[in-house]
């Protein structure tokens, strides 16, 4: 029982980070219909920014917001200078889905190469701001540590903030409208191009947070080739698909589901099966519930 609760706690923490990554992917998909592999590179680059700021200032609480801003700026930059011209030019319906995917893959490659060029073999250190030693409950150490609590708190806070932005603000209404019906939005006076860039920026900030949290929750260090970030990108995509790729709530549910399932597999079946399991879940969801586990057939959810 004790072991199972611990496994759940580990799964929920990891899953909350996948949720953030899934949100980053869903936001871009909803606003521009682009499958954004560059999200992994944005998270990686922002995490390097975070580690540099941490090195200079020594404060995690400065590093995190700066990394989020960097992620937002980088993501908006990519949308504005690469994807927007590309989408404007590709009138051909057959290329419409294909070209952006190749483009974001290419951008991911370029970003990794640039990071390699800047940092070389240097390792970006991101030591956790709080202890990762588990709390002691009735004499035994549980998986919930101050660090894990902090991660969960940050994710929760961001999700509340996102919900408020999307449901209560004008820019939130514009973001939803522009993603559901760009033409009606333009006819209503919404500057859809601008709104899309904002959507990418929010996605970049979410991805940056996911990258930072993934690193402090993991090895506490980041390299341009970090395997943790490939995992983050893949698991973010799987979580987004589980949640139906359209929905922010779905992204959260998908991330937590994936995190918990993988933690259970890791605990009871071993690490060699984790990757396999993630893809198996992806394929099962695509075959059985292509609209996601909470998806409504034919309907889209805010």
């Amino acid at each position, binding site marked *: 029982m004790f072991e199972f609760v611990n496994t759940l706690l580990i799964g929920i923490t990891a899953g909350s980070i996948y949720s953030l990554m899934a949100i980053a992917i869903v936001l871009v998909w909803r606003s521009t219909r682009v499958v954004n592999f560059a999200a992994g590179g944005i998270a990686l680059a922002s995490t390097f920014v975070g580690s540099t700021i941490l090195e200079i200032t020594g404060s995690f609480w400065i590093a995190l917001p700066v990394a989020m801003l960097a992620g937002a700026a980088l993501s908006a930059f990519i949308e504005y200078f690469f994807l927007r011209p590309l989408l404007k030019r590709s009138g051909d319906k057959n290329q419409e889905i294909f070209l952006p995917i190749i483009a974001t893959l290419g951008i991911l490659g370029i970003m990794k190469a640039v990071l390699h060029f800047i940092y070389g073999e240097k390792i970006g250190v991101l030591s956790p701001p709080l202890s990762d030693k588990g709390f002691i409950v009735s004499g035994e150490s549980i998986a919930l540590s101050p660090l894990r609590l902090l991660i969960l708190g940050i994710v929760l806070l961001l999700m509340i903030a996102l919900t408020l932005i999307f449901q209560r603000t*004008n820019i939130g*209404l*514009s973001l*939803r*409208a522009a993603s*559901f*019906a760009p*033409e*009606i*939005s*333009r*006819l*209503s*006076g*919404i*500057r*859809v191009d601008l709104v899309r860039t904002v959507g990418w920026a929010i996605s970049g900030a979410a991805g940056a947070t996911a990258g930072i949290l993934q690193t402090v929750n993991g090895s506490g260090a980041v390299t341009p080739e970090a395997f943790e970030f490939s995992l983050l990108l893949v698991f973010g995509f799987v979580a987004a698909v589980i949640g139906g790729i359209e929905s922010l709530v779905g992204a959260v549910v998908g991330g937590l589901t994936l995190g918990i399932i993988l933690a259970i597999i890791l605990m009871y079946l071993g690490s060699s099966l984790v990757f396999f399991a993630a893809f198996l879940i992806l394929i099962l969801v695509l075959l059985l519930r292509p609209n996601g586990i909470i998806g409504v057939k034919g*309907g*889209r*959810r*805010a």
Partner: protein
Amino acid sequence: MLRVKNLTVDHGAIRALHGVSISIEKGQLAAVIGANGAGKTTLLRTLSGLNKATDGSATWGDLNVLHSKPESLVRHGISHVSEGKSVIPELTVSENLDLGALWRRNRKESAQSKNEVVELFPRLGERLSQRADSLSGGERQMLAIGRSMMSKPQLLLLDEPSLGLAPLVVEQIFQSIRDLTNSLGLTVILVEQNAIGALKIADIGIVLNLGSIAATGSAAALRDDPAVRAAYLGF
């Protein structure tokens, strides 16, 4: 006033409008009728900035309408309610309305416009927090027009507001359009398949045929024109 001169619009290789010229005075309600594929929708989409013109000119007052984007034309008082109940189903009725006034960046005026719309279409007022996909066809059309009114238009472009509605509802919608035109001094282009109904409420009529103007004149005169009656009114 709206002046359209020699407007030519292509969809790729298909020429949808061949040198169309139209003149509509301020405060007039103009009905545009014509068969399927005549180019009615293309005309409206070009005037609202959604389609690009190949040739010709269009001015609304001093404003050059062509080569402008829809989002900036809205800011100059041109509002287009596109074909097929143009509401966003995933948003609530209230949000659909708010959307039309976001660009005005004035909460007070927006709230006031919303009250006016609700006064005009009380059924929307009862359903403000419902999702728009729970509305009936007629209510959706009211919402689409209401959303457009939220941006304080001076030139209203309506594409087949009667599409798929019961005759009684059509009559209501047409009456609201006429009332709006009178009370707010709007200029309206009403594209319609329901030619009889549209010509009944309109000041002037324009008949489009295969991308060209086949007839134009006062709505009453067109209603009595035997050729128009035979071809478009069916009696």
